[in-house]
């Protein structure tokens, strides 16, 4: 028998941890781009609470449809003489409000539902998942219109509609990974110690899927922004005098001849903000999900 009591030589470790600078550089570019756009958006929205170039809804009737670059109006004015920059900032504020509320609530409800389904009895899981799938297939706009018909157009309706639409999304995304984690050995062991299912879901599953939820949140935020804009465009969302990018775009439709450039500003704002959140979500996914990466031939 070989002498096993002999001290084993320690391996000379060759690998070293890369420096902070190197690690920062390895982060995906989407994370930086997305982060920059999102930060800009949030900053603009927050600043609008304390300062805008002009007071909200201040009409400058002598300066209607001024082109960008006119004195005092960096991006021009709209049909009623409102400063475009101010309108954009206020629109950001509204988008932020609606999106934050709806995303947070939807994620909260959705993940609870998803976790419950994942933790429920096997027999029940199938039908419930199909229900969630059915909820997924229905477009949010439809719910929004239904709610708006009864409750009246407005921010609240829009927020409710977005929540109703996004809850199945959050639930669906949660179910799969939650089930996988519940099937893990160490989780099953927890039951052996006497832990309840609720505890397991809360303490084992939730922390493990939180990277996923973070990414999901970012993507849902982008979707919320787009829907809020669409609803405002249709006059089903936020109502005057509150500003919104969507409503702004609606007004520009009749100005295609008179001031064609106007439609660019709110449109670009929407695209950049939604893009920012999507990129951020992408970047976060790459960073937080270790399985992402190689796509060469196996």
């Amino acid at each position, binding site marked *: 028998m070989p002498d096993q009591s002999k001290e084993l030589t*320690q391996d000379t470790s060759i690998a070293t941890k890369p420096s902070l600078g190197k690690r920062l550089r390895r982060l995906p570019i989407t994370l930086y781009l997305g982060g920059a756009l999102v930060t800009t958006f949030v900053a603009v929205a927050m600043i609008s609470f304390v300062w805008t170039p002009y007071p909200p809804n201040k009409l400058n009737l002598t300066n209607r449809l001024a082109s960008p670059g006119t004195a005092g109006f960096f991006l021009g004015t709209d049909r009623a003489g409102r400063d475009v920059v101010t309108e954009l900032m206020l629109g950001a504020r509204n988008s932020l409000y609606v999106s934050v509320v709806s995303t947070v609530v939807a994620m909260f409800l959705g993940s609870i539902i998803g976790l419950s389904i994942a933790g429920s009895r096997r027999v029940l899981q199938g039908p419930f998942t199909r229900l969630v799938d059915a909820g997924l297939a229905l477009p949010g706009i439809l719910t929004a219109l239904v709610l708006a018909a009864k409750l009246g157009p407005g921010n609240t309706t829009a927020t409710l509609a977005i929540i109703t639409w996004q809850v199945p999304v959050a639930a669906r995304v949660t179910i799969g990974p939650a089930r996988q984690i519940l099937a893990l050995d160490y989780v099953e062991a927890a039951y052996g110690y006497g832990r309840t299912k609720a505890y397991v879901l809360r303490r084992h599953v939730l922390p493990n899927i939180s990277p996923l939820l973070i990414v999901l949140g970012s993507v849902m935020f982008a979707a919320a922004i787009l829907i809020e804009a669409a609803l405002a465009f249709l006059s089903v969302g936020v109502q005057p005098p509150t500003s919104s990018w969507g409503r702004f775009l609606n007004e520009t439709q009749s100005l295609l001849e008179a001031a064609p450039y106007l439609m660019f500003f709110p449109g670009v704002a929407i695209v950049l903000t939604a893009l920012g959140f999507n990129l951020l979500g992408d970047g976060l996914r790459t960073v937080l999900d270790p399985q992402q990466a190689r796509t060469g031939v*196996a």
Partner: protein
Amino acid sequence: MLNLRNLRVTIDDYEIINIDELTLQAGSRLGLVGESGSGKTMTAKAIAGLLPNEAKVSGEVNFDGQNLLTLGDRELAKVRGKRIGFVFQDPARSLNPMMRISKQVSEAIRIHTDLKGKAVTAKVTDLLRQVQLPEPETLLRRYPHQLSGGQQQRVMIAAAIAADPDLLIADEPTTALDVTVQEEILRLLISLSEQRKMSLLFVSHDLGVVRFVCNQVAVIYGGNIVEAGDIDSIINRPQHRYTAALLAANPGMPKDDNFSAFIGRRLQTITGSVPAVGRFPSGCRFRNRCQHASDKCATTPSVTASSPEHRYLCWHPAQGGQS
């Protein structure tokens, strides 16, 4: 016919493979033995040109005089299937679940020959017969999930030899199969190799299985070939300490043709475990697990040949350096 020279594979600045020299003679069956993490599968992939994109390769993979590493994608595709065939580990995952058996087995034929239609079907049926599948005609239109694991692997083999390659590389072909089926598949490989005069590179972690199938063996550890040569010589008189340890972990290594005595045992009682990539010691990579290591082992051992058929790299060989 196959000769690896100065083959180095690095991924992310870690050296995965470093093989100075490895040769497979035409017509012989060479076993490449090592634990998981030893680099044996990577070596097979390097030969096939199927390494992940991040891998950097240098050196020579000489096949019939041609260095495969210098070939572009298109030329390599002409070699694969036609002159080198491959059998992979898990047949359930290595077969396309949405494609019929006949289409997959005939793939190499359709790529590399001009045969069409009925001629192809006839050849496929014949191939299925050669791998000892019953009622091959009915199997043609089946899908992989309708077959058992052993049958699936036979299909893989049929597909691999379809275009009559000169060399067959098999990476752990029986590891995912039931023990009862393993012997049949291994015997099949041996008989195919003999009948078709086809060389075989057999990658495995199981020294017993390799003893059963091959006549040459190369032991790989930490991406290095530590001992290579004629199988009997190595099994009976192992020189490298790692080889010796492998054999010691496999007591009662029989020398006859009775397969049941060879049933693979996992390598168990070598102290410590294979270090992660990048954490191997300098010099002889095995020295931190070797009972006989000394300071000299911090320098990479040079090749010693105890006979023309038996090379090893060890400063403290088990047989004391004599054959």
